C-alpha cells in the first residue's frame, strides 16, 4: 500500500461522505417541494433561492434543539440506537460503484472506494444492521408508542429482507458474480449492438419485487408502519429530539438512496448509458439520474398512496411477495440455463 493509494482513498471517502450527506439533505428538500407541488402548496421556498438553503437551516435548527433523554429510558441504548441506525447506512457507500474509471494525473481512478468480490452481500449485511437501531430505539425509549413502532419495524424489515434477497439472485445468476462492478459490467453489453442488456428487460418481475421490498425495507409509504404518523404518532423515534432524531432522519434518507442505487445497479445497468464507453465521466451522471428517478418514485408514492395495516403488510410479504420471489428465482435460473 503506497502513500498515493492511501491519499486516493482518503479523498474518495471524504468526497463520497460529503456527497451522500448533501444528497440526503437535498432529497429532503426535494421531497418537501415535490409533495408541495403534488398537494398544490408551495413547500419551503423562503430560505435562499427556491428554498435551496433550507437544509442548512434545518440542520442548524436540529443542532440547537434541546437534547431530551426520557427519565426512565435505558440511557446507553437510547444514545447508541441512532448511531447504530446511521453508521451502517453510511457504510454501504464504500462498495457502491458510481461509475467505471477515468485517468487522472496519470492514475487510473475508479468511481468507488473499494471493490469487494462479495459487494452485494456487504450491502445487504450492512442494511440489515440498521434494524437494530430501530428496534433498540423503540425498546429503550420507555414509551408504548415507540415500543410498538420498534416491534412493527423489526417484524417488517425481517420479513421483507427475505423477498429482497431472493429477488437479487437473478442479476447475480446472470452476471455470475456478487461483485457489483461485475454485475454492472455484464449489463453494459448490447444485444444486436443496440438494446442494452439491462436486467430489467429479462427480469421485470424480479425488478418489481426488489422495488416493493426495498420500499418496505426503508419504511416508506405505503409501508411506513413503523412511523405511522396517524396511529403511532411517530413510532420508534417519538421520544427522540435534536441531533439524535436528525440521525434517524439521515439514516432513513441514506437508506432510500442506497436502495435506489442498488435498484439502478442491479436492474438499470448502473452507470451504463449512451456514450459512456468513450466518455467514462458520463457514468456517474447517468447513475445519478437513475438514482434520482427512484427517489422521485419514492416521493410520488408518498404523495399518492394510503398506508397498509400491520397484518395486511405481513400477509402481503409472506403470502404473496416471497412465493412470487421464489418462483422468480426458478424462472431466472431456467432463463440463465437457456441463455448461457
Amino acid at each position, binding site marked *: 500500500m503506497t502513500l498515493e493509494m492511501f491519499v486516493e482513498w482518503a479523498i474518495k471517502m471524504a468526497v463520497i461522505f460529503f456527497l451522500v450527506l448533501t444528497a440526503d439533505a437535498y432529497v429532503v428538500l426535494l421531497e418537501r417541494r415535490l*409533495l408541495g407541488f403534488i398537494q398544490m402548496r408551495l413547500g419551503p421556498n423562503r430560505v435562499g433561492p427556491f428554498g435551496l438553503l433550507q437544509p442548512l437551516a434545518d440542520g442548524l435548527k436540529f443542532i440547537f434543539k434541546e437534547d431530551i433523554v426520557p427519565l426512565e429510558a435505558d440511557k446507553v441504548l437510547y444514545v447508541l440506537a441512532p448511531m447504530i441506525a446511521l453508521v451502517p447506512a453510511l457504510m454501504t457507500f464504500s462498495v457502491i460503484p458510481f461509475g467505471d474509471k477515468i485517468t487522472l494525473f496519470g492514475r487510473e481512478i475508479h468511481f468507488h472506494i473499494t471493490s469487494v468480490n462479495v459487494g452485494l452481500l456487504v450491502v445487504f449485511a450492512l442494511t440489515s444492521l440498521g434494524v437494530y437501531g430501530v428496534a433498540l430505539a423503540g425498546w429503550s425509549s420507555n414509551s408504548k408508542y415507540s415500543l410498538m413502532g420498534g416491534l412493527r419495524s423489526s417484524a417488517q424489515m425481517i420479513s421483507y429482507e427475505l423477498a429482497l434477497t431472493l429477488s437479487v439472485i437473478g442479476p447475480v445468476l446472470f452476471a455470475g458474480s456478487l461483485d457489483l462492478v461485475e454485475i454492472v459490467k455484464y449489463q453494459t453489453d448490447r444485444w444486436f449492438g443496440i438494446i442494452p442488456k439491462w436486467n430489467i428487460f429479462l427480469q421485470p418481475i424480479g425488478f418489481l419485487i426488489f422495488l416493493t421490498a426495498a420500499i418496505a425495507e426503508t419504511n416508506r409509504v405505503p409501508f411506513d408502519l413503523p412511523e405511522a404518523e396517524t396511529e403511532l404518532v411517530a413510532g420508534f423515534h417519538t421520544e427522540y429530539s435534536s441531533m439524535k432524531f436528525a440521525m434517524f432522519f439521515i439514516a432513513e434518507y441514506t437508506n432510500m438512496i442506497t436502495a435506489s442505487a442498488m435498484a439502478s445497479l442491479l436492474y438499470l445497468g448502473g452507470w451504463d448509458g449512451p456514450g459512456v464507453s468513450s466518455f467514462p465521466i458520463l457514468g456517474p451522471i447517468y447513475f445519478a439520474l437513475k438514482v434520482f428517478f427512484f427517489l422521485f418514485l419514492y416521493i410520488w408514492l408518498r404523495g399518492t398512496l394510503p398506508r397498509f395495516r400491520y397484518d395486511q403488510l405481513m400477509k402481503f410479504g409472506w403470502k404473496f411477495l416471497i412465493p412470487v420471489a421464489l418462483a422468480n428465482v426458478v424462472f431466472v435460473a431456467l432463463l440463465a440455463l437457456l441463455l448461457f
Partner: protein
Amino acid sequence: MSKVVEYSPTRKLQELAQMKDQVLDHNITVSMGPQHPSTHGVLRLELELDGETIVNAVPDIGYLHTGMEKLMEYKKYQQNIVITDRMDYLNPMGNNLGYVMCVEKLLGITDEIPERAQVIRVMLTELQRIASHMVWLGTHALDIGAMSMFFYCFREREKILNIYEAICGGRMTVSYFRVGGLPYDIPDFVPGMIREFCKEFPKAIDEYKALLAGNTIFQARTKGVGIITPEDAIQWGVTGPSLRGSGVDYDVRRYEPYCGYETYDFEVPVETGCDVWSRFSVRIRELSESLKIVRQALDRLKPGSVKVDSPKIALPEREMMKHQMDALIHHFLLAGLGFEVPPGEAYHAIEGSKGELGYYIVSDGSERPYRVHVRGPSFVNLQALPVMVKGAMIADTVAVIGSLDIVLGEIDR
C-alpha cells in the same frame, strides 16, 4: 375480637398463582390522545391492547368543554345563534338552522317564513354538508395515510367558504340565519358563484373516487372494518351517514321534512356493508345528492322578502328605520330587550352533516331560554365506537374514528 390470619401454604400458593396471572397479563393500556394527530381534536381513548389487537376502548371526553348549553340560558334568543356556530364548527349553517327553527316552533311562526328564506336556508345548509364532508373525507384519508387527499378536499371546501364570506363575511362562524328568516338577502352575484361551484364540483368527486375509492390499499383498510349491525346502531342511537352505512334508511330530511325538503328531488344513499367502507360510500354519494338539492334550490330562487313580516321578531330594514318612527322603536326594543317567547317546550331536529342534530328548548316566557339542550350527533355516534373497534387493530381505530366523522366541539359543547 380480631381475626387471626393463620399462615397456610395453600393460600400462599394461591396468592402466588394470582400474582403470576397478573404478571403474565399481556394486555397493555395505551392512552391515545388527547394530543394525538388522528383523534380529530381532543378525544382521548383508553385502549387496552393485546399486541396490536384492541381488547377494549373507552372514549374519554370533556377536554373541550365550554359550557355552551348553560351559557345559552343567560343570553337572549337571538344572541344564542352565535354560540351554536361554535359547537360543530364544521357545520355552522346546520347548527344555526336547527336552533332558529326550534325557536320558530316555540313562537309558532314556522309556516310564516318566506319562501325565499326557506330556499336560501336549504341551499346553504346543503353546501355546508358538502363542506363538512370535505373535511371528513380529507381527514379520513389522512388518517389512513393518503396525505394528498386532505389538500384536494380543502381546495373544494375553500370555494364554499368563499361563498359564505361573500354572503355574510364569516367563513366558519357564519351566524347567518335569524329567528324569522335571514338578516339580509344574499348579494346578487352569489347565485353565480354557487352555479360555478356546482359545475366544478362533480369533477372533484370523480377525482376523489379515482384517487382514493379506487385504491386497493384503501379498500383493504376499510372493507370489513369497524362493523356495527343495524340493530346495534339503532340501540346506540347512531344517526346520519354512520347509520345509513349500516343499511338503515333514516334521514330527518325525508321522514320529518322541514324547510320544504319534501318538495326537493333527492335520494337518501343507503349502504348495507355496516363497515367503514359503507359509511365512506354513503358520504361520497351524499355529496352528489346535496349538489342536486343545491341546483334545485338555485332554480327556485325567486325575488321576495327574506324575513317574516312580524316587527316584534325580525329587525326592520335599515331604510325603514330612517323614515318610520315605529320601525325605529321596534329596532330599539328588539336589539335592546330581545323578543319574548311564549312559555312551553319544543324539540326540533334537522339532518346535520353528521346525523340528527336536535335542539330542545324550554321557555318560561322571558326573552332568554330557560333550558337549551342539544342532541349532538357526534356525541351520540361516538358511543358506538367501542362496539366498532373491539377486536380490531390500532390502525383500524383511526379508520373507525374517521368514519364516524366526529367533531369534538359538538361532543363537549
